[in-house]
């Protein structure tokens, strides 16, 4: 009987110990020195300039607006230039025609 009780106690101990160990939470580091060390590690120790496109973020709306403004502005400038050319050529044609008429009349 004693041997049976001893075997049961041993068996239960063997079953419960791993479960008890598995449930136990990790021991927190509550010392002040440890906490201060972590904070020091998180603190920035140098400044590094960002190079490349990550340096700034341009909103897409501004780029879209700029693109459409470029299209209309270039078209408008082209039309203005063409109007100028047309006016200049018409004036020149008129002047030359008058000169030819005058030379024919002589």
């Amino acid at each position, binding site marked *: 009987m004693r041997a049976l009780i001893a075997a049961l106690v041993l068996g239960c101990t063997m079953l419960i110990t791993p479960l008890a160990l598995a449930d136990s939470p990790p021991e927190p580091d509550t010392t002040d020195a440890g906490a201060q060390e972590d904070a020091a590690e998180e603190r920035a120790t140098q400044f590094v300039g960002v190079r*490349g*496109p*990550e340096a700034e973020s*341009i909103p*897409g*709306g501004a*780029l*879209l607006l*700029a*693109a*459409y403004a*470029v*299209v209309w502005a*270039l*078209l408008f400038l*082209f039309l203005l230039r*063409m109007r100028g*050319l*047309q006016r200049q*050529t*018409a004036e*020149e*044609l008129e002047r*030359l*025609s008058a*000169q*030819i008429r005058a*030379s024919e009349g002589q």
Partner: protein
Amino acid sequence: MSRTRQSGNSTVWSLVLFATLALFAATLYMIFVVAPVEQQMGIVQKIFYFHVPSAYAMYIGFGVSAVGSAVYLLKRDPKWDAVGVAGAEVGTLFCLIVLLTGPLWARKAWGVWWTWDPRLTTTLLAGMIFAAYLALRSMGDAGEVEKRFAAGLALFGLVDLPLIHFSVQRWRGVHPTVITGKGGGLESEMYWALGLSFIAFTGLAVLLIWARASVERQREETARLRLELMHR
């Protein structure tokens, strides 16, 4: 040119003008009201609806310039030289639009304004060839030799156009291939907006080439009259 033919041309011109204006209004409505905002790039993707048709209008301009130049070299008819000049100017205008709107999109999508991608590089090359053509033609009253040399330059520029188009398929690059190559395509509203934009830009390119060629013919006439007066 007879008065009847002038009147007919004027009617066609007005019809194309009003149709183009109406198409632009419809295109802008489709782009900003109907077509959805793209998931990855956001609102900046809407540059695409003017950028791609501008590239197409650039092809039209440079193509017309090359055809006009080829016919001029064969026939020596100043009318075709005027067509060549008009096509080169309009093509360069749209090339400039492509080269300015592209980087505005790329800044957001790729993080850089410019990269030496095959399509970007070949487009820049085409712009430079036709800019050289215009520089050559802008040196006072171009003589016969300058005109012929410029016509040859336009034909040389024509060789670059297929390179631009097929560069995204043949060479490795970063330029999107949404509507060419093996792209994933567009949503139906996006297709409608792009399709209308293509038609509107075609109308615009035709109108501009037509008007510019007409002015150039007048300039040719002026040069002829000036020469006639000098020989009297």
